């Protein structure tokens, strides 16, 4: 049996880190920055979360520290790319490689282990049983009993939606992303908004990272983010740069992920094909978007021409 309740539960779990990465990417893209450094920020977040939890004995403090860790990396990214005008993609690549090596280095320097670190002293995040809902038959087993970060993720999706579309700051952020010149002449400080977006993406990536190392598993492994930052980018594109769309995109990837885990156990078909699917879909989506833009341009030109001919009559 491939489809059952547990599949949905594992989908929601696997979608969570992608959704965090997606929200992080989405926020920066809304401010006009293609932030591919989310991948690296997430990795650092996952590592710092483990360090924090291990030494303080509190998973929550681990999560908070992991946000600070990712935000430090985000700050470096913002400093170099926004202030010192390093190319945003090049800086993103450099940050990702940096994060990759730094975490492995620190893993060995601090814990003296290679590959992975886990310990009985490492406190993971506990599963939360929602008070009333837990007892509702099907609903309870669907939405209750996840790590707190899963719920925080859901809340943040809603909050990002409210932020982007209902608050002044969010609307200004979107204006900066779409037409910085328009924002500038209206007295909005573009670089400050971009800086804010990058820092927020750092915090979100930190949450995603700590979910990987304290929520989903209770351990840190090398290269733990495993492309989820880029998946977040893909989810963002899939979701047309909206918070809710991004979330749906990450659910889709989570579904593929959990199906492939399950099929791997059953050995029905090579799991790699399922793993490839999300990326293939992204390529197709990007192609469709380009097609559509081309078509829209042609249509607008045609409409303009028709209007002019009518006017000249």
């Amino acid at each position, binding site marked *: 049996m491939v489809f059952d309740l547990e599949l949905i539960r594992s989908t929601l779990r696997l979608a969570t880190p992608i959704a965090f990465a997606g929200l992080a990417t989405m926020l920066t893209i809304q401010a006009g920055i293609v932030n591919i450094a989310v991948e690296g920020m997430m990795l650092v977040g996952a590592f710092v979360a483990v360090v924090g939890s291990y030494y303080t004995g509190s998973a929550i403090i681990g999560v908070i520290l992991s946000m600070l860790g990712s935000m430090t990396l985000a700050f470096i990214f913002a400093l170099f790319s926004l202030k010192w005008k390093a190319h945003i993609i090049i800086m993103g690549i450099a940050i990702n490689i940096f994060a990759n090596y730094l975490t492995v280095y620190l893993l060995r320097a601090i814990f003296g282990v290679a590959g992975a670190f886990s310990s009985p002293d490492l406190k993971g995040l506990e599963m939360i049983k929602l008070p009333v809902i837990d007892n509702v038959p099907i609903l309870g087993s669907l939405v209750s009993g996840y790590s707190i970060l899963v719920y925080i993720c859901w809340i943040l999706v809603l909050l990002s939606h409210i932020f982007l579309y209902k608050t*002044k700051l969010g*609307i200004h952020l979107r204006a900066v992303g*779409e*037409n910085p010149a328009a924002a500038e002449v209206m007295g909005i400080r573009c670089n400050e908004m971009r800086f804010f977006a990058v820092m927020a993406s750092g915090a979100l990536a930190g949450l995603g990272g700590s979910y990987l190392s304290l929520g989903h598993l209770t351990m840190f492994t090398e290269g733990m983010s495993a492309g989820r930052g880029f998946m977040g980018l893909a989810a963002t594109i899939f979701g047309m740069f909206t918070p809710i769309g991004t979330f749906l995109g990450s659910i889709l990837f989570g579904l593929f992920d959990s199906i492939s885990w399950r099929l791997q156990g059953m050995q029905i078909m090579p799991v790699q094909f399922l793993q490839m699917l999300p990326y293939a879909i992204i390529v197709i989506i990007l192609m469709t978007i380009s097609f559509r833009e081309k078509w829209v341009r042609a249509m*607008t030109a045609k409409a303009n021409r028709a*209007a002019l001919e009518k006017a000249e009559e």
Partner: protein
Amino acid sequence: MTPRETILDHKNKRQNNSAIAVCMKNITKVFPRVIANDHVNLTVNKGEILALVGENGAGKTTLMNILYGLYLPDEGSIEIKGEEVRIDSPDKAIRLGMGMVHQHFKMVPTFTVTENITLGNEPAWGKGIFVDKKKARAQVIALSEQYGLKIDPDQRVRDIPVGLQQRVEILKTLYRKAEVLILDEPTAILTPQETRELFNVIRGLVRDGKTVIFITHKLKEVMEISDQVVVMRRGRVVYTSRTQETTPQKLANMMVGREVLLQLKKTPAKRGEVVLAVKNLTVLDNRGLPAVRRISFEVRKGMVLGIAGVEGNGQTELVEAITGLRQVESGNIVLEGREIGMFNPRRRRELGMAHIPEDRMTTGLNMEANLKDNAIVNSYYKSPISKLNILNFKVIEKFTSRLVKEFDIRTPNLNVVANTLSGGNLQKLVLARELAGKPKILVASQPTRGLDIGSIEFVHQRIIDARDSGTAVLLISAELEEILSLSDQIVVMYEGRIVGILEAEEADEETVGLMMAGIKPDKKMKDTSFKEKPF
């Protein structure tokens, strides 16, 4: 300024002494390569429409950007309502009652009309965190009713036509309580109907006590809408007048200037067979609107055909279509009997076309590359510059140094990057490269823009030399003097159409100036009849 004009100017000042909205004094702004504003004085009376005219690069937009706080002037002062102010940001300008509608709209396309109008200044609730969308909408509706500017507050800006978008831009300034509205070439992108509506709007605003600065280079519009007109040329104010006291020809002459060009050695043209023929050509601009409309002309061997016209009347699109940088919508471009409308730039060059583009910084040259790379871009794949796809450095070196020598390009060596050279030397390099292959047709677009007198003379002489050696030359220029002194035949363009074709002998400043303003030369027609012509 001639004495008469100065007197007029004083008279105007006396008349409206009590209400001066904006006074800019001695404004100077220097950019790395150019003096954009050279001690400019500008006085705008309250409740009037001032037209600021001049060619591209005359310094109008820079001056207005200074007034709007986007640039700080290097010298000079600004007074608003008689008080000296320092405008160091658009924010400050807005607070002082300035409002600017930029030529390229500054709007967020996916936002609604309401969101765009209120952007940065939204009414809010919850300690200023959340936008009060209802209130914003109500404010916008009230504003649009107050000024009679009808719009749908809920539509997305990208879904509405440009005319309405412009209306939104105007509402944006009014929302911020602008007293002085600066409109930067507002009609450049409008259809005639939309222009008419815009003028009604502007008149309404002035009735409500607003002051309007209207930047344009369309003389017809100046005559129709403005109270006062100021002409700028090469960074200076060259003419100021009450609108009813001037004529479009006068303005055209002031715009394009009457600099006495140095002696040009020019013998009568020996016209040969037709080299380039353009037949019923229609070309669309970037928005998909026809910029060139069913144009036909011929250029013959050994002659210069000059295309005159105030900028923005389709010349850019025409040149791009002829040289292969823009698609042809309909019609034919024929080079020596061969249809070339579908060919890419390389094919056209191979058939003998050369091109001096109007923008040498992005199109004519690779500013990041050295002189040698720039010198061979049109011949790099041909023998002897390269053989079997391998560049021959010795030949390139020789070729480039020959060009440098023949065209007197001042450079320390051939390996310097292009952006270290002055504008004159850069244009000489372009000219040298384009003429090196002995082209059959040279398309020269604004070949002397931004150059010093010495370089202008040099470029002119070389164009004439090319003509005399049998090249057909198509010259596109907004400088009337340039057209008159170089051309053997003159085509005048207006709004994408040809107003008329003149032989050099029958062309003089007045006739061509008139035609550039869109008026067919008709001896019986008086200057004053212009205003009565339907729009």
